[in-house]
């Protein structure tokens, strides 16, 4: 069984987000780029499964759609332990285009399980995984909080609104993972970093697909009014404000 982990490259979660060119572009000055947190966790789980004896997982590959400038992120994923990588050399403009390109990677290889995160912390679309599955006409399971392989059979738990379900999933499929999939992201060790330098990154030609959406500009959220402080000796005042000023309780 071969696993493909789709990796998105996003600003570090503590980065101050700013825009340039009349708020039409992300200002990348000073941004620290990282592997999307969900993707780091699904890579971690994929590697755990590969190491689990009898799981039948032979190889863990990663795929990323992005220009050459994203290679440090790909190398980082290789250093964490992925066996090889695919990069589609294009700057996709929306989730649809990303998914169309990932579909080409999937078709070019032989993967039984394709993992995506529930959302990228940049455009928060929660879209790529489901779109990829539809392009491929594969089964998709969203909201996976637990993933295991036993004797070549894939077991997952998926979270639904107000409950969860344990499923057995036939391969090939696209799994969209969320909280619970792995505890802590695995960190690259020195040896991994050395080995990553020699691991192959296969370039894939971009698919000929136009995006479906167009981002016109970015808008910062409305600034919140300054905080009103209430005397800690007098919490009645807070209740009174919530009832009569905010009118929310």
């Amino acid at each position, binding site marked *: 069984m071969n696993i493909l982990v789709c990796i998105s490259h996003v600003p570090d979660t503590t980065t101050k987000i700013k825009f340039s060119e009349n708020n039409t572009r992300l200002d990348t000055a000073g941004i620290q780029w990282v592997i999307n947190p969900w993707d780091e966790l699904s890579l971690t789980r994929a590697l755990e499964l590969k190491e689990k004896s009898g799981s039948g997982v032979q190889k863990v590959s990663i795929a990323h759609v992005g220009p050459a400038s994203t290679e440090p992120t790909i190398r980082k994923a290789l250093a964490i332990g992925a066996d090889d990588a695919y990069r589609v050399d294009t700057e996709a403009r929306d989730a649809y285009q990303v998914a169309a390109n990932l579909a080409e990677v999937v078709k070019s290889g032989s993967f039984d399980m394709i993992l995506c995160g529930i959302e990228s912390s940049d455009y928060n679309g929660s879209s*790529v995984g489901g779109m990829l599955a539809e392009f491929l006409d594969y089964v998709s399971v969203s909201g996976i909080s637990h993933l295991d392989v036993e004797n070549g059979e894939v077991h997952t738990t998926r979270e639904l609104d107000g409950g969860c379900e344990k499923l057995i999933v036939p391969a090939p499929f696209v799994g969209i993972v969320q909280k619970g999939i792995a505890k802590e992201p695995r960190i690259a060790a020195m040896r991994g970093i050395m080995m990553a330098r020699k691991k192959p990154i296969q370039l894939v030609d971009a698919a000929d697909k136009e995006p479906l959406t167009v*981002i016109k500009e970015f808008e910062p*959220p409305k600034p919140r009014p300054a905080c009103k402080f209430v005397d800690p000796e007098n*919490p009645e005042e807070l209740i009174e404000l919530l009832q009569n000023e905010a009118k929310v309780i």
Partner: protein
Amino acid sequence: MSVLVYTENWDGEFKKLSFELISFAVKLAEEMQTEVVALSVGKTKDEELKKLSQYGVKRILKVENEEVDQFDPQIYAKVLSEVAAREQASLVVMADNNTGKALAPRLSVRMKAALASGVSSMPDSLSPFVIKTRAFSGNAFAVTELPTEVKIVTIAQNSFDLVEKPSEAVIEDAGVDISGMKPKTVVKEVEKQTDQLLLTDAEIVVSGGRGMRSAENWAPIEELASLMNGATACSRPVSDEGWRPHEEHTGQTGKVISPNVYFAIGISGATQHLAGVSGSKYIIAINNDKEAPIFDAAQYGIVGDAAKILPKLVDALKKAKSA
């Protein structure tokens, strides 16, 4: 033309969420000078379906085939695309919850329909269709144009008010042809959280962080929540420590919620935490460090020891309730 709303029922019952979807769609359809059609998948009683018409929908289509007993995104996307095509929907509306996240992207590819997810405001313009979507974990909105003929919008829960508009609705069988489509996954076990207010449905949320010091100190948080018919939540370290169940963790790697009121008690307000709660209408912070970043996001704050303040707050609330 029409606006198609994908409503959701849990064991045959609708929750506020579906009425929010209808209210949003009815308002939009008026501006677009078109009609709203509601789609209900799974077995429901007609009386229950009629509840949707309280919010202004006049046509309700239902799909009760056995093929939809299990939630299979492939089959559901086919149902939705068939109905959307037949109803000549120019817009499909669904919730930005687990179901919407599983279905909307599949539908987008199936129908070549542009998708805007996590929407919390009405469109900026209808033609061209431009709408704001959540971006950078709540640190910005992406003003996005959907230029395709069919468009899909998923909306954030608790972002649109319910608007009552009682009307007479016709209920029809959607008559989709999915016979022979079988879910390919096998369900081994189902666990349901019943009789419990879900964090994502709650309008008031009382949340505790590491400043609460230990699991034993949660009683006043639970009491506050229950006095206000709210739900309880927590920061990530709290659920990591096992002080609270994982379903309660809010933030970038937990649940993203937008209640009317979010009490952040002993929570510092890290960006990753705010990413999950910045959509709340009011944030109220209780923290003993007046420099804590949570106060930058809060409208009301109390600086002090939560252990001392909470019992007083509970008393004050009880008094206010009985007054």
